[in-house]
Each structure stands twice: as structure tokens, then as C-alpha cells.
């Protein structure tokens, strides 16, 4: 009980809500690098996956790539990015929060988005695309007006899967030089401060659940109404 009271005290201490190591700044850093990485990963992977899916080619490569990538330790990826880019970030990348963390997180986000994009288009049944072609639609219209609207639920699943991994790995950036919301965990562990570690862990857990919930809610709004009854299954298909 004393422990939980200490945790509450930690949260109500105004000093933990101010300055460069304050909870608001850390949250902003965490979200900034995560969303920057997700946006760039999606901009690269979603179009490629979609076109591959439309052509029905290269899917085996995309899916195997995603599976293989799961075997790469995310922590190694972060340290690798730190080693590759040295200490200073190139100018013009201030919006990423931390260029090194951004590189690692972006790379991490590409395979699940690529695989889910590909699968999302492949899952649209031939009865729909054949009918569209039979009606005289051009290939671009088949893609834009038939395949993509039907595929959007799965496309979003890919984004969510990628974001779960990105937000989780962004916590590790606190251990490799970029202060994210896990900074209290890193600092607390270094000095054996149970309360700080626990408080930081609670914050990170809440953030992860909140971001995932946000993407899920946003996803439901984007899906065309007639298709909303379909559950967004095939999660983590790749």
C-alpha cells in the first residue's frame, strides 16, 4: 500500500510534469517519432503492397520478408541506427524527433504494412473484380473504386500492427539516447527506484493502449459504411 501511495505521489509531483524530462514533453517525443515513422513507412510500403496485390505478383517475397523481419531484434535495429548515423542527425529531419530512432522505427513498420497491403488487395474476391471488368471499368478504376474500398479494413490492420511495434520499440529509444515516455523506466532502473520504474511503465502502457485504440477508432470511421459489418480479421496475417 505504501508503494502505491508513493506511485500516486510521484504522479502528483508537479516537477514530473515540467521541463525537458517532464511527462508532457516525453509523451510528445514518443508520439512525434512514432507517427513520423508510421507515416513514412506507410508512404513507402502501402503503395508498393497495393500495386503488387493488384498485379498478383511478388506477394511471396513481401510476405516472406515480413516473416523474416520478425526475427530481427528491434533493439538491435535501434542500436544499429545509432551506430550508422553517429551522434548528429542530418539537418532537415527535425520533424522526426530523433533521426536515429526514426530510421529504426520506420524500417520496422515497412514489412507489416507491405504484407497487409498486398493481402488486402488479394483478399478482394474475383467475383468483384471480374464484375467490375465486365462492366467495362479500366484497370485504374478497378483498383481505385473496387479493390481499395474493399481492402481498406485490412490496410488499416497493417497500419495498426506496424504502429504497435513502432510505439513499443520507441520505448527502447529511451535506453539509446532519445527521451521517450520510457525515460522514467530507464532512469529508475539505473538507480533501482521501484516507484519511478512502475510509474513510467504505467504511462507507457496507457500510451500504447490509447494509440492503438485511437487508430482502431479512426479506422472504423474510414471504412465505407456498407463494409463496416465485416470484422477486420486476418490481424497479423504476416
Amino acid at each position, binding site marked *: 500500500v505504501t*508503494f502505491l501511495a508513493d506511485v500516486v505521489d510521484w504522479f502528483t509531483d508537479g516537477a514530473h510534469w515540467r521541463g525537458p524530462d517532464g511527462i508532457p514533453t516525453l509523451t510528445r517525443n514518443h508520439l512525434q517519432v512514432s507517427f513520423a515513422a508510421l507515416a513514412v513507412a506507410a508512404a513507402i510500403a502501402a503503395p508498393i503492397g497495393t500495386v503488387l496485390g493488384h498485379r498478383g505478383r511478388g506477394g511471396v517475397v513481401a510476405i516472406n520478408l515480413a*516473416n*523474416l523481419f*520478425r*526475427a*530481427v*531484434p*528491434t*533493439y*538491435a535495429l535501434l*542500436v*544499429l541506427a*545509432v*551506430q550508422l548515423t553517429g551522434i548528429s542527425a542530418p539537418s532537415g529531419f527535425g520533424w522526426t524527433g530523433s533521426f536515429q530512432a526514426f530510421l529504426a522505427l520506420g524500417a520496422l513498420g515497412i514489412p507489416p504494412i507491405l504484407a497487409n497491403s498486398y493481402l488486402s488487395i488479394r483478399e478482394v474476391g474475383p467475383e468483384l473484380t471480374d464484375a467490375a471488368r465486365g462492366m467495362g471499368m479500366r484497370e485504374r478504376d478497378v483498383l481505385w473504386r473496387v479493390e481499395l474500398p474493399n481492402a481498406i479494413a485490412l490496410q488499416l490492420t497493417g497500419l495498426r500492427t506496424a504502429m*504497435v511495434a513502432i*510505439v*513499443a*520499440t520507441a*520505448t*527502447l529509444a529511451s*535506453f*539509446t539516447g532519445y527521451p521517450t515516455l*520510457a525515460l522514467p*523506466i*530507464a532512469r*529508475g*532502473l539505473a538507480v533501482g527506484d*521501484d*516507484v519511478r*520504474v*512502475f510509474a*513510467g*511503465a*504505467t504511462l*507507457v*502502457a496507457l500510451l*500504447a*493502449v490509447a494509440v*492503438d485504440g485511437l487508430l482502431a477508432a479512426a479506422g472504423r470511421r474510414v471504412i465505407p459504411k456498407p463494409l463496416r459489418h465485416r470484422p477486420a480479421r486476418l*490481424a*497479423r*496475417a*504476416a
Partner: protein
Amino acid sequence: VVLRGLVDAASPVAANGPGSWLWWEWIPDHADAIRANLVEHIVLTGWSVLFGVVIAAPLAVLARRRRATRGALVAVANVLYTLPSVAVLGILFPIFGLERRTAVIALTAYTLAILVRAMLDGLDSVAPEVLDAADGMGYSRGARLFRVELPLAAPAILTGIRQATVSTIGLVTVTFIVSQGGLGRFIAESYRRDFRTPLTVATVLSFALAVAADLMLVFVGRIALPWKRVERP
């Protein structure tokens, strides 16, 4: 030798010295540490997947009896999947300390998230007419589960186990924050010391371990489940 040439060519710093990506002399000098960390990596993965299977199996079987329980179990599994391991480790640390059990519990939570879903999906994939046939032949509920449902669900469950194993092998490195980490210890060392060889060694070994474990599980599947070729995930 070819690999060595490639690595040296890719190295922007000294061809083969302490500053390169892979300093070969470091490896024999640290053979004991490499072996110890690799073993720790395998042990952490092994316990976590084992506990995951042992806990997820009864939960999945029980949850299927009632819709509400099932929904609750899936919801819990989804939250577990969303939680970053660093957060789970941080929540467990005040209770369990810088010990192996902290790492195993956190990793088990993660394998559970994957395995519960895989087991439910596997059991769902058994066709209802097969179940009707089993009932008609007079199978008891338990016999039907063990002799009909589980064998038919096994390939999907194995796919889940493969996924859980490969993901866990990558995730073990994170447990360095509670003074565990297997090969992750080398990665932490690389970051702190600005010395790249341990990072390269840990990444390559961890990746190789994941691929080897996956192939081994496929092989086990071929032998243990001869009635159906194991599906790719």
C-alpha cells in the same frame, strides 16, 4: 572467407580492427560469453513459449464454451499484445526484481497474446460436420476434444507456436533492461561502448537462432502431424 570479405568491404572504418563492424579476434576471446548469452537466450525463449502453450491451451478450450468468456479472453490477449515489453517489465520489476523470472513472465505474457488467438482460430477451423460426425459416433466431450478437434487444429496451433517462438527470440534482447537479455547483453554493450562487434554478433546469432527454431518447428510438425502439411503463416 567470402562473408569476411563482404563485411570488411562494407566497413567504412578500419578493415579489420576494433573499429570495424566485425572484429574477428573478438570472437574467440569471448567464446564463453557468447555461449553463455546464447544459452540464456534459448532458455528464456524456451520457458516463455512452454508456459505460453501450457497456459493458453486450457484457456482457449474453456473459453470456447461460452461466448462472453471467449470475448473477454480475446480482449485480454489483444491488450497483452499491444503492451510494450518494456512497460510489462517495468510493472513486474518492483515485485520480481532484476531476475530471470521477471523476464520469463513478461515474455510469457507476449507469447500468450499470440497463442490464445492461434488456438482459438485453430479450434474454430474444425468443420461443424466433423464435430457432428464425432458426436454421432458416440464420442464423449473429452474424447472428441483430444481425438478429433486437437489433431485437426494442430497445424494452425503449430503456426501460432512458430510465430510466438520467432517473435520471442527477437524480444528476449529487450530483457537486458532487467539485467537478463541473452544476446541482448551484447547489444547493450555495443551501445554503451561505441564498439560494434558485439552488436553484429548478437544480431546475426539472434536472427540465425530464430530461423533455426522456425525450421525445427516445421520439421517437428512434419513428423508429428503427418496428416496435414503445416501451413505457412
